[in-house]
């Protein structure tokens, strides 16, 4: 009988933000269409290392398993990507799995991406539709804007664009491409445009759009194929017009 095919996985373990890190290697039974999340589940089922040592299940975030919830971003063979769409058969082994490095670590592969959500709040990444009284119907959205906006609305806040950005680091509070692209989305919506200048002003604050240095890694790393560099350029144009011409033209 043929020997069962094995998958070798190496996981960076860390019990907490202040604990020491170590790598643990696992040998798993190969199955068709296996992805990295399946590997992590298999480890949880039988948390024994390749060397036969008993260990603990690995902490990680994941939910939808179809690249839509944005929670399972991690470093797989050194590159930021979604674990659910990282297929074992397409990866070099041993598959090295580490947590994202630009967000505070919680435990093992789980990180805290609160920074992104705070940034989204800072730029008012929503469209206000409620008031203390009936605001009535909003203006219609032209098919052209719908078409431009749809790809931007696919953002899943996974944080891959921040992870790969050389300008996002401990010295720099750059909000990152995803947030700038959301500003573009909400500013192009006719109702959202009512808060356009506030959003742009927030993006011209500390860690704002000025920190982008055009390395363009974000657009390569985005699992949803969002035209992030186009969004940054568009928002940049609106921002400098507001900053430099606003006080002249009003």
């Amino acid at each position, binding site marked *: 009988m043929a020997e069962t095919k094995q998958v070798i996985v190496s996981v960076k373990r860390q019990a907490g933000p202040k604990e020491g890190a170590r790598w643990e290697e696992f040998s798993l039974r190969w199955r068709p269409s296996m992805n990295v999340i399946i590997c992590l589940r298999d480890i949880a089922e039988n948390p024994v290392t390749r060397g036969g040592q008993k260990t603990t299940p690995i902490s990680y975030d994941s939910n939808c398993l179809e690249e839509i919830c944005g929670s399972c971003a991690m470093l797989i063979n050194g590159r930021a990507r979604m674990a659910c769409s990282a297929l074992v058969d397409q990866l070099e082994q041993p598959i090295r799995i580490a947590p994202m490095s630009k967000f505070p670590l919680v435990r093992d592969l789980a990180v805290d991406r609160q920074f992104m959500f705070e940034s989204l709040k800072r730029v008012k990444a929503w469209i206000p539709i409620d008031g203390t009284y009936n605001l009535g119907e909003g203006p219609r959205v032209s098919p052209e804007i719908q078409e431009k906006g749809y790809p931007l609305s696919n953002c899943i806040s996974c944080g891959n664009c921040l992870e790969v950005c050389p300008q996002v680091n401990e010295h720099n509070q750059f909000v990152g491409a995803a947030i700038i692209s959301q500003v573009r989305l909400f500013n192009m919506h006719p109702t959202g445009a009512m808060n356009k200048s506030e959003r742009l002003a927030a993006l011209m604050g500390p860690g704002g759009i000025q920190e982008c240095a055009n390395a363009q890694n974000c657009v390569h790393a985005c699992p949803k194929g969002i035209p992030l560099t*186009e969004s940054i350029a568009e928002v940049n144009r609106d*921002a400098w017009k507001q900053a430099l011409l606003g006080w002249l033209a009003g």
Partner: protein
Amino acid sequence: MSSTTTQPDTSYLLRKLHSFTGLLPVGAFLAEHFWSNSSALVSRAKYDATSQELQTIPFRLIVEWGGIFLPMLFHGGYGIYIWLRGKSNVSAYPWVGNWLYVTQRYTGLIAFAYIGWHLYTERWLTHGTSTYESVAMDMQNPWYLTFFVVGVLASSFHLGVGIWNFLCKWGLAATVRAQQAAGQFGALVGVAFSVVGILIILSFRFDWHPFSAYLPPTK
């Protein structure tokens, strides 16, 4: 809404000023500098006449300091500050844009150091009266010559990539197609400046004047 909410942060304005000064006046000065120095490709006398012309412009010190030295000092100094606030990751993500991000920083530093030295040797030591003869003398030193070549290539590359960055970062080239075109334009500028700069160096090094045929024949 109150007007204060639309006021940008100082870091925003400095960053925009950094981007803008790279093109105007620093980039524009590089173009002017190469243009003027191209006179050497015609003849020694033409070069000396051109430098005499530039050395005797009215308000020279104000133009030099306000239009050239201070903007360069700001662009270079703030550029180093920007560099320190970035963290390169080109080994993990070796994409073209990421390589340009890194090389833009190194070429900027090389160009900044070169320009400082170039100003010292050709402007300060000559008390602002350099001639074809004095520059040609410097070019005989192989170390000077090497530094000239490196400086010209670094400056040209930095300007070429800088133009691409400028067009993207001011939203003048936003779509993928426009940014590709901006990149091609930047590359063209970088190559053109490199070629012209090297030709000027060759002219001084080998007393070579390929456009001397433009001069009226001497009797």
